[in-house]
């Protein structure tokens, strides 16, 4: 297992895309903190950028990487290596390199400019969002055989989580404005890892005005401490379940 993970991580570090991603994140974060003198405002701007870019890069890059590793996977499957080991190594390897890129790009300026507790929670949320979208990419790859289809599915999933989901929630809110759907909305919010991540950070920042409708209901319902706990738990589920499903599919896949 370790040998395979080491191989994937080394391969990723040599990859220029991951370097470019680190650089992009670094430029964004340094300029955000350079422009804003208020750290909280800076963190909020960064949060919005982060919740758009990190999922996009994680999901697309991972999908392409997995498809490009098809030769590697083929080769390994015919060797005495357990299938789940190959898949898990790829997952861990990709996660390590994406997290490294995120910590170097966003983590360093955060630690320098933002209060320590907020910097740490931003970093951990960024890491878990990376892992979640890598897991979703793995699921997309396990479902589709074809590379272009797989990338298409990934882009659609990103669009859905990053943009369409909010629209859907708003639509539901307006359509059912006359009914007491607050509690259902809490459940629906959990269906979007990006919203969960946003709520988790906003809970730490104590800027309830920015929570939005679902966030406000969420805080109101759970309170800050249990809210933090629950959103973290849901985020972990979002990382584990897609990967677990993809692993089960990969074990039965014909190569």
């Amino acid at each position, binding site marked *: 297992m370790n040998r395979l993970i080491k191989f994937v991580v080394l391969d990723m570090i040599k990859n220029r895309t991951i370097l470019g991603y680190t650089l992009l994140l670094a430029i964004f974060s340094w300029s955000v903190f350079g422009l804003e003198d208020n750290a909280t405002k800076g963190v909020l701007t960064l949060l919005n950028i982060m919740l758009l870019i990190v999922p996009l890069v994680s999901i697309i890059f991972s999908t392409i990487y997995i498809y490009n590793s098809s030769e590697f996977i*083929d080769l390994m499957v*015919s060797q005495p290596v357990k299938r789940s080991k190959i898949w898990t190594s790829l997952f861990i390897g990709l996660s390590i390199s994406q997290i490294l890129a995120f910590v170097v790009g966003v983590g360093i300026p955060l630690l320098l400019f933002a209060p320590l507790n907020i910097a740490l929670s931003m970093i951990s949320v960024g890491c878990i969002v990376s892992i979640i979208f890598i897991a979703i990419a793995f699921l997309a790859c396990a479902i589709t055989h074809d590379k272009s289809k797989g990338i298409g599915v990934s882009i659609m999933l990103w669009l859905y989580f990053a943009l369409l989901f909010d629209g859907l929630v708003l639509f539901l809110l307006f359509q059912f404005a006359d009914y007491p759907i607050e509690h259902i909305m809490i459940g629906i919010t959990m269906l979007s890892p990006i919203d969960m991540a946003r709520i988790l950070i906003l809970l730490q920042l104590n800027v309830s005005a920015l929570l939005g409708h679902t966030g406000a209901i969420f805080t109101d319902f759970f309170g800050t401490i249990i809210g933090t706990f629950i959103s973290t738990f849901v985020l972990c589920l979002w990382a584990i379940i897609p990967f677990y499903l993809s692993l089960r599919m990969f074990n039965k896949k014909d190569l």
Partner: protein
Amino acid sequence: MIAIQNISKKFGKLTVLDGASAQFNKGECIALIGPNGCGKTTLIKSILGMVVPNTGNILFNDVSIKNKFLYRNNIGYMPQIGRYPENMSIGQVIDMIKNIRNYNSQLDEELLDLYKIKDLLNKKMRTLSGGTTQKISATIAFLFNPDVLILDEPTAGLDPLAAEILKEKIIKEKQKGKLIIITSHLLSELDELVTQVVFMQDGKIKFHKNTEELKNDTQMPTIAKAITHILKATAHE
């Protein structure tokens, strides 16, 4: 050594293997033949666990291979079209496989020397010609002294000299009492090698005979002629 028990495999609506059964033993050299698309490669991939059959069992040394992987330590596989990570060099690929196999005994580097691969170790996989890739596949298949060798179209794409080297190597390994499974369309090549012929058609194993029996049945002097005879006969059906 390898027992295939009634395996079937469907890809969508297409039935590729339809209740195939066979028994392969130590010391045999088996030619797996049949028209294109008859399920040869799928059968081989099932033995390797790369394709998971819908029904049926495959036993390796009397143990089912389902969800197992360690049995592959005893198999050397040479694919029809070798696919390797493109941005790795030949040396890196060989090192990686050595690393994963964790093989402690003496490596069989005969093909590595005969094909002069040591001079090419720094070449990237993506720059290699089809023939050179085949040489790498062959080298890797024989490298770990496996008890079973599965060779899918081994000589396709090799120049005559390289093909001859490979043929001699196969004969040598056969004499050591290994099980060798070959698929090939170049029937004339098989004459010196094989002891048994398995003929497949439409996902079924039509017959499994040793070469003498086959020649007697068809009244033909060579395996190549015997098989062409059968192919013609089945084409007319």
